[in-house]
């Protein structure tokens, strides 16, 4: 038994190291700093590079350079840092650069409260880039998820050549918990597919594929990378046909693969007419709440804990919500992911309960919402 007593940030770091991350750059920010501290311990021992950049923009910049040079790269911050990453996130999308970005969310808006948790950046994570192209957002709810989802994040980033976000929360990142490192799920680790034959066009794709084969900057064949709208050879284009094809491919590249990275837990209560949907640390309170109302009032409630937030797993939502009379979405914000659920389950009653006051949502609050009927 390999018992560790670590926080969520450390668990993410362990997952990253396991997944083969050997380049990490971050700027100190509460509540993500312990991730930087842990990477400083883990990576150099494996010959990996850790940098503390002059600001978050530099950090994500270093990562994009290192990633294009062939290394698996990660950066981590909180809301204020995500704001600074934004332009480079757009670049990672446009340039199809694999990178994992951890956002340990804290109370906002703006500087907010460094030591209080929140889920305030959920839509920002999805839409915080110019052009609005899809990104992947995974949300851990405990230490095991922190480790395993980070491994998945690297796999997705490498396979699909895109930015993948880990939507963590101060309440997970900075709470220490017991973890048996030997029993945590360790998915197999994937590498980016390399170009093997024929002339190399950095953004061309093979028939039937959506992801360009990779060659590193610094390898024997010259590689072009650019943040400008480009054609397959990596030069600027203004050709509308080429451009539309390209952006559609960038969208399809992610969305078509959703079923391969849709992670969730479903706690199905036979005969239930109420479904709770939650994610992150709040999902743990939801689990207790559902058990509470069943034990005390015989109220049957099913629970869907989402771990892949974006792209939105429509099928999972529809499946879980089938025959449900009421759906309650609980999150630590003023109602962000609920917007997606209302969109997908547009013909069903979807209620929301949430706060963004720096406090965890407690099981009794969710239980109260379930027992008394819902707030609109």
């Amino acid at each position, binding site marked *: *038994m*390999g*018992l*560790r*007593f670590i926080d969520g940030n450390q668990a993410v770091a362990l997952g990253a190291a396991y997944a083969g991350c050997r*380049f990490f*750059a971050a700027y100190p920010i509460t509540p993500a700093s312990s991730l930087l501290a842990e990477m400083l311990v883990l990576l*150099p*021992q494996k*010959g990996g*590079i850790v*940098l503390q*950049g*002059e600001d978050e*923009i*530099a950090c994500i*910049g*270093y*990562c*994009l*350079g*290192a*990633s*294009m*040079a*062939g*290394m698996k790269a990660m950066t981590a911050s909180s809301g204020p840092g995500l704001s600074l990453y934004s*332009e*480079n996130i757009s*670049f990672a999308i446009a340039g199809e650069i694999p990178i994992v970005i951890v956002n340990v969310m804290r109370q906002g808006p703006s500087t907010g409260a*460094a*030591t209080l948790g929140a889920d305030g950046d959920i839509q920002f994570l999805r839409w915080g880039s110019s052009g609005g192209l899809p990104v992947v957002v995974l949300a851990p709810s405990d230490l095991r998820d922190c480790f395993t989802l980070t491994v998945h994040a690297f796999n997705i980033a490498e396979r699909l050549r895109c930015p993948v976000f880990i939507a963590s929360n101060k*309440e997970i990142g*900075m*709470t*220490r*918990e*017991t973890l048996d*490192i030997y029993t945590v799920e360790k998915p197999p680790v994937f590498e980016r597919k390399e170009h093997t034959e024929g002339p190399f066009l950095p953004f061309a794709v093979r028939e039937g594929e959506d992801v360009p084969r990779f060659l590193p*900057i*610094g*390898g*024997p064949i*010259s*590689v*072009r*990378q*650019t*943040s*400008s709208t480009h054609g397959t050879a990596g*030069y*600027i284009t203004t050709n509308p046909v080429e451009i539309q094809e390209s952006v559609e491919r960038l969208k399809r590249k992610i969305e078509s693969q959703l079923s391969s990275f849709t992670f969730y837990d479903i706690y199905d209560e036979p005969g239930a007419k109420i479904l709770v949907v939650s994610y992150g*640390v709040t999902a*743990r*309170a939801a*689990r*207790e709440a559902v058990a509470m109302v069943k034990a005390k009032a015989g109220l049957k409630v099913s629970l869907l804990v989402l771990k892949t937030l974006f792209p939105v797993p429509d099928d999972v939502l529809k499946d879980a919500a089938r025959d449900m009379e009421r759906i309650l979405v609980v999150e630590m914000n003023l109602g962000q992911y609920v917007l997606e659920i209302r969109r997908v389950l547009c013909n069903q009653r979807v209620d929301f309960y949430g706060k963004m006051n720096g406090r*965890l949502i*407690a099981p*009794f609050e969710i239980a109260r919402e379930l027992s008394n009927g819902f707030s609109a």
Partner: protein
Amino acid sequence: MASLLDTDRPPVFCPGCSHERILFALDRAFQLLGLLTHEVVIVTDIGCSGLFDTFFKTHAFHGLHGRALTYAAGIKLARPELHVVVVMGDGGLGIGGAHFLAACRRNLDMTLLILNNFNFGMTGGQFSCTTPTGATTSSGFLNNLERPLDICSVAAAAGAPFVVRVAASEKKLDVRIVDALAFRGFSVVDIWSICTGRYLKRNPRVAKDLERRIEGMEPFDGPISANLRREYGEMYREALDRETQKTAAPGEMHVYFTPSIKTRREVVLLGSAGGQIISAGSLLARAAILGGMQVTQKNDYDVTVMRGPAVSELIISNEPILYPGVNKPDVLIALSKEGVKRRQALFYQTGETSLIIREPGVPVPNTAARVQTVDFHSFGIRKNKWALASLVILARRGDPVTLEMLKFAVEQTFDEKGRREFYGIMELTERFSDNLAVLKP
């Protein structure tokens, strides 16, 4: 050696633009050094200078405005053998100021060519951080209110070990670039240029003024002795060599005891900075883990770490812990007024079975919880050991951990001095073991 330029993509600069001259000088420099296309990466950002990477057949990385140095650093650290040439304009330098300073401080082996033409050419001739006073730009009166930057002085002050200021018209520009490329460290070449498309039209005397102005300034011709030092990448790799010799110390723990409780306990330590509240929480956590229990620990303290309240919240359970928040605290250890104030609400969440251990000077709200006042001072226990003493008192009742577990945890984590202090406290607290009857859960 062969040119590294892509003959299918000839330069498209405005007629007379210095960028073209610099482009060919750079290519000649590559040839003089015998470099092959795959041995070079040209990193650019936005502006006319950002076109450079498209004219070469080398590796190319064209990124965000002002951020070229950041990509270059990542590339160079990942591929130390690659020749990294960063090409930026005075515009990119302005927006990327922080990265420029960091690059000068860091001294990673790469070369920065600044195509300094005193304006933002591509966007229509707005002023930049190097626009001379009195120049006419498309920024109206704005540039007359600001003073231009001397890039070379800033680079030198920030630590760049190799700095050159040169006019684009310089006959031996290729040689100057060769020197910069060959220099092992961060080399900066500030190339004063003519922008024929914008700046020259509004400031026709710029060409004559340019060389005169350079001559009137402090010369920068290469190595700056005061800044010569080891290159960053080399030092980093040396540090990694040392690090990889270390054997990982993962801090794994093992279970040595059977659990002392069959339920969930919520214990909160409330005190002040300096009271070793957090470390007491960690010790309690470790003791519980030794007993095979699941634990969560959440700490709260002010950013000014040596002052203000300190709170450690622990949940100890023999089942996996779902909700990691305190619902109904079983034990509240109240050791300072500000600690109590920080978590006042918790007191109202207590019940009859809850226990509050308090120090005489700490008032606590009136609730149904049992209160045990412990005058630590009278037992000879110093203030910064009250938290530890509270744990001993708890452990004596065997809930949520036993004294054996606590001792084991101490043996595992405390140094010689710490252990002696702990055993001292154990002895001192024996004296009020008779009062423990009221503390039994």
